[in-house]
Structure formats: structure tokens, C-alpha cells
């Protein structure tokens, strides 16, 4: 990404990680660049300098082929060490699909992913209920709002032990749940067997967020909808507010 020719600072600078096997990096980058003034910079998995960034996104794909377990190998890349520090200092980190799996494996988010209940890859539009509209990633949505975004994964069956789940619920860390189009969180609306229909969670501090559905795929009405824009808009708002830009 070339430096912006303007002197005014951009409203938000995103880093989009490329692990070997990432395949939604370009989609995510495209989505970011459709937002007025937002900048996206690709981050090769061996890079370690993130200090020019406001938000790091780990995109979807099959890092290292998803061999062994999704995200298991990617989490050891030099970049992830930097992401850990970046998050510890309060930087915004979001994992989408495979990126979410990497964050789980890295321990930046609690829990683990198993194979989908029916053992099949699923790609379809699903309904999601926004359970927490106070995070830096969801503030543009309303509590209880139902949005539509596609999932495309083989291992999105979220698991955490009982204690962990109670903690997530108590702290409002469950951010998105699979629901029916009316917003009811039902078993039938659960596409992959995820515990408590969980589709997205954040860490306790709220600055690290992972979701299985793909918001970057629903930022343009021509190709499926615009419900995903709220995620990026929320991040931009949060960055503006923090930096006073």
C-alpha cells in the first residue's frame, strides 16, 4: 500500500495478514478500501512491525492448508508474536473465519473449533444476532439486531468448557450468535453445531474479536448485501474516537 498522498491522516489504518494459504486477504483488503479514506496494508506473516496500524485483521482462508488443525501452524508465525504485543497494548485485532481459528489457537481468544457437526464444508448466507453492540467492532449495530452474512467453513463448531462459557456470557463476550431470520436463537438456525450458537466472540478487554461469518463478503449490494459494513464502520468509528482523528 502506497502512502496516502494526502497530508491528513486516514481515519483508520488496517493491516491485513497474509499467511501462506490465506485466501480472503484480497477480499478483505478490497472491502476496507471501499470505506472512505480507510487504508489497508498487507502484512506478510514474517513481518513484525505493526506500529503504524490501528487494526490488524487476520483474514479467512486455509493457512498452512488447515493441516493438523485450522490455525495450528499459523499461530507460530513471527507476525503472531507482534500481534500478541499489539493486542496487549490495546490495538484492535479481528480474526475472520480462519483468522478466528488462528486467534483461538494462539490463545488470544478462549475456546477451540471442531469440525462442523455434519462434517461438511458449509457455504451459505446465515442470520446473525448482535448480542453485544458495545464492542469496537459492533458499535454501529443495535443490540438484538439481525444481520445477514455468509459462512464458508469446515471447522466452525465452537467449543469451550462450561466455566469458560459462563464467563463469556457473564462478560458479554459473546458478540454474535446464529439465529433465524426473526432473531430467534434456535437449534435449527445453528449451521455447524456451535456451542450456544456462538458465531463471534471477543476477549475480556473487548479489543480482540473473532467471527466465523465473513463481513467482507457483504459490503457491496451487487455481490450479496451490505450488512457486513457495520463491522468495518464500527472499527473506523472506534479508531477516530480513540485518536481524535
Amino acid at each position, binding site marked *: 500500500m502506497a502512502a496516502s498522498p494526502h497530508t491528513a491522516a486516514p481515519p483508520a489504518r488496517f493491516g491485513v495478514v497474509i499467511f501462506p494459504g490465506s485466501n480472503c486477504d484480497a477480499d478483505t483488503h478490497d472491502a476496507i478500501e471501499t470505506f472512505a479514506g480507510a487504508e489497508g496494508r498487507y502484512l506478510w506473516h514474517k513481518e513484525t512491525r505493526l506500529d503504524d496500524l490501528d487494526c490488524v485483521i487476520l483474514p479467512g482462508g486455509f493457512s498452512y492448508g488447515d493441516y*493438523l*488443525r485450522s490455525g*495450528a*501452524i499459523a499461530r*507460530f508465525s513471527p507476525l503472531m508474536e507482534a500481534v500478541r504485543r499489539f493486542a496487549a497494548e490495546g490495538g484492535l485485532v479481528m480474526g475472520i473465519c480462519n483468522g478466528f481459528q488462528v486467534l483461538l*489457537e494462539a490463545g488470544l481468544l478462549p*475456546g*477451540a473449533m*471442531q*469440525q*462442523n*457437526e*455434519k*462434517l461438511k464444508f458449509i457455504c451459505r448466507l446465515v442470520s446473525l444476532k448482535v448480542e453485544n453492540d458495545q464492542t469496537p467492532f459492533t458499535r454501529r449495530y443495535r443490540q438484538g439486531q439481525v444481520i445477514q452474512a455468509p459462512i464458508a467453513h469446515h471447522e466452525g*463448531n465452537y*467449543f*469451550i*468448557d462450561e466455566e469458560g462459557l459462563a464467563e463469556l456470557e457473564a462478560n458479554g463476550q459473546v458478540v454474535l450468535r446464529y439465529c433465524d431470520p426473526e432473531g430467534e436463537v434456535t437449534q435449527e438456525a445453528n449451521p455447524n*453445531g456451535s456451542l450456544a450458537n456462538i458465531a463471534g466472540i471477543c476477549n475480556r478487554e473487548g479489543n480482540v474479536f473473532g467471527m466465523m461469518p465473513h463481513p467482507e463478503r457483504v459490503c457491496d449490494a451487487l455481490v450479496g448485501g451490505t450488512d457486513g459494513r457495520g463491522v468495518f464502520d464500527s472499527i473506523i468509528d472506534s479508531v477516530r474516537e480513540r485518536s481524535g482523528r
Partner: protein
Amino acid sequence: MKAKVYITPKAGILDPQGLTIERSLPALGFEGVSNVRVGKYIELELPDGEGAGESLERMCRKLLANPIIEDFEYELIEE
């Protein structure tokens, strides 16, 4: 030095693969099979030396198994 690693889904965790196999067995003529659990079996060769066991243990803990959902055991085979 050869090593064998056995990784199994943690007790109490739903194992979708095992469950699916268990459900499809009767249709293939296998009745009464239960408690099917599917895990991983990894073979590898390690540099010889005293640290081998410890190194393998670390490898399992850090990479080969995910302790949140999996248990592991291993065997070292001296040749």
C-alpha cells in the same frame, strides 16, 4: 529415534466424526458398536539424545494437540 503420538478427543467433548461413524455402522451391517472416538495418530522421527522425550512432550503440548479439546499420549521407540 522413532516416536508415536496418539491424540484423542477429551472425555466429555462431543466428537462429531466418531458420532457419524457410529451412526452409519448399523447400515453397513455392524451392530452394537459404541463409543467411537476419532483422534489422530502421528509417527515421526526425532534426533536421538536425552532431551528427546521432553522435546516431544513440548511438541505435543504446543503444536500437535490442542489441550482445550484433545488429550495426547506418546511413545518413544529406541532402535
